[in-house]
Every structure is written in structure tokens, then in C-alpha cells.
């Protein structure tokens, strides 16, 4: 019942599924956030059971990088929206997958 590892893996898998199954760019970005949050929670948990502060420091870096990544993602999204007037990547299939 009381297990962070289970919770984090579940959250990570939900995020990964969102990345794979959804085709709406914004939802995919949110799924990335979920994955990174799961990792953060796991790092904090391990930091707690090891009694070691390094994990918490690492979480801070992950947060900063996640914010940076989502910024880049939204900039690309703006560029795409300007070109195709949509945010569904199923409309982007000029290149063979």
C-alpha cells in the first residue's frame, strides 16, 4: 500500500503511454512532464531511504531542465501551428516513419 516505487513506476508508465498513444502535441508535452515528475518522486524517495541529500539536489536539476525542455517544445509548437494551423502530429506525415 505504502510504496513509492509502485506509485512512481505507475506514473512513469502513464506518461510513457501518453507519449505513445496520444497524437495531440500539448498532451504529449504533459506526458513528458508526468514522466519527469515520476522520476523526481523516485529520486526523492531514494534520497530519503539512503539518508543522502544528493538525490534532492539532482531533483532540482531535473526540474530546471524539464522547464527548459517544455519551453523549447512550446516554441516548436508555435512554429508548427503557424505552418499547419493544427497541433495534431498525425497531420505531419510527409516523412515516412
Amino acid at each position: 500500500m505504502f510504496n513509492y516505487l509502485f506509485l512512481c513506476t505507475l506514473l512513469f508508465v502513464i506518461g510513457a503511454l501518453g507519449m505513445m498513444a496520444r497524437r495531440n502535441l500539448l498532451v504529449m508535452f504533459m506526458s513528458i512532464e508526468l514522466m519527469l515528475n515520476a522520476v523526481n518522486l523516485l529520486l526523492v524517495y531514494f534520497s530519503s531511504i539512503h539518508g543522502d541529500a544528493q538525490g534532492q539536489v539532482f531533483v532540482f536539476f531535473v526540474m530546471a531542465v524539464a522547464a527548459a525542455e517544455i519551453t523549447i517544445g512550446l516554441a516548436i509548437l508555435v512554429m508548427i501551428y503557424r505552418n499547419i494551423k493544427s497541433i495534431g502530429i498525425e497531420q505531419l506525415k510527409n516523412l515516412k516513419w
Partner: protein
Amino acid sequence: MSNILFFFIFFSVQTIGSAVVILFTRNVMYAVTALLSSLLGVAALFVLAGADVLGVIQIIVYIGGVLVLTLFGVMYTYQSPKRYQESIPHKKSVFILIPLLFVLVLLVQALPLLPMIDDPYQHASKVEVTGMLWLTEYLPIFEWIGFLLLVVLIGAGWIGSTLVQEDKSKGEQV
């Protein structure tokens, strides 16, 4: 049932439930709201795991920064559902199986090994140690984070700008 266990279960359910809403909803606005709820749940779980300062940072960075950015993205690109209906493919079962298998393996083998956190405040607060580490051993990483943010600043500004090249023919692949 101890109080702390009750809070753990409450916030776990909140986090996972909101994540599931993000996974299945077709309305982006609902998804953003669910993300807010999920991030708040994670912030609370941070505190329960003994990382109170990270809980605060989570609220500042994610909810004050990332979520507002995402909300901006939603408003910028909003279209009525009549114009854009997302097609969710159903043939991805193979991709869904892989992470599920991974969870199973991890759960079966690792669950009994790990201790639980029964009381987040049984240890002394790690805030002081964390701060020391940030500014001593992890100082280079701090600088590289700053560097990365500079990269993002240039990149996002440049890619989002509307200064376009007129002489290029559209859609030609070079």
C-alpha cells in the same frame, strides 16, 4: 491507519487519477487542469517523503512556470473540437505491452526489498545539507544549468520569431 498513511494514499490517488485523466481526455483544457492537480499531488508527496523544500520549488517552478506556459500553449492553439478531432490509434498494443511488462518485472522482484518511509520527520531536515551541496560539489552543474537556460533562451526566441526568409521556396526539400 496512521495519519501519514492516509495522506500518502490520498495524494497518490490524486496524482495517479489526474494522470489517467490526462491520458484519456480529449479536451486539452481538462488535461491542463488535471496536470495541475497531478503536480500538486506530487508536491505533497515530496513533503511526505521528507523533501519539504522541493515541494515548495515544485509549486513555484512547475505550477508557476511550466503550467502557465502550457496554458499559454493551449490558448494560443485552441480550436473547437469540430475542426480538430484527435485520432487515437488502437494498433499500439505492442507498445503498451512493453512498459507493462517492465512494471511487472520491477514489481515482482523489487517490491519486497524496499523499506517504506513511515515518518518523514524522523530524520533531521536535509535542507541545510542540500544547500551546502548545491553550492559546493554541485556548483559546476549549477553553472551548466545556467548555460542550458541561455541556450534555451536563444533557441526559443529564435525559433518562435516571425522573421522569415522570403527567398526560400515553400516546402522544397533541400
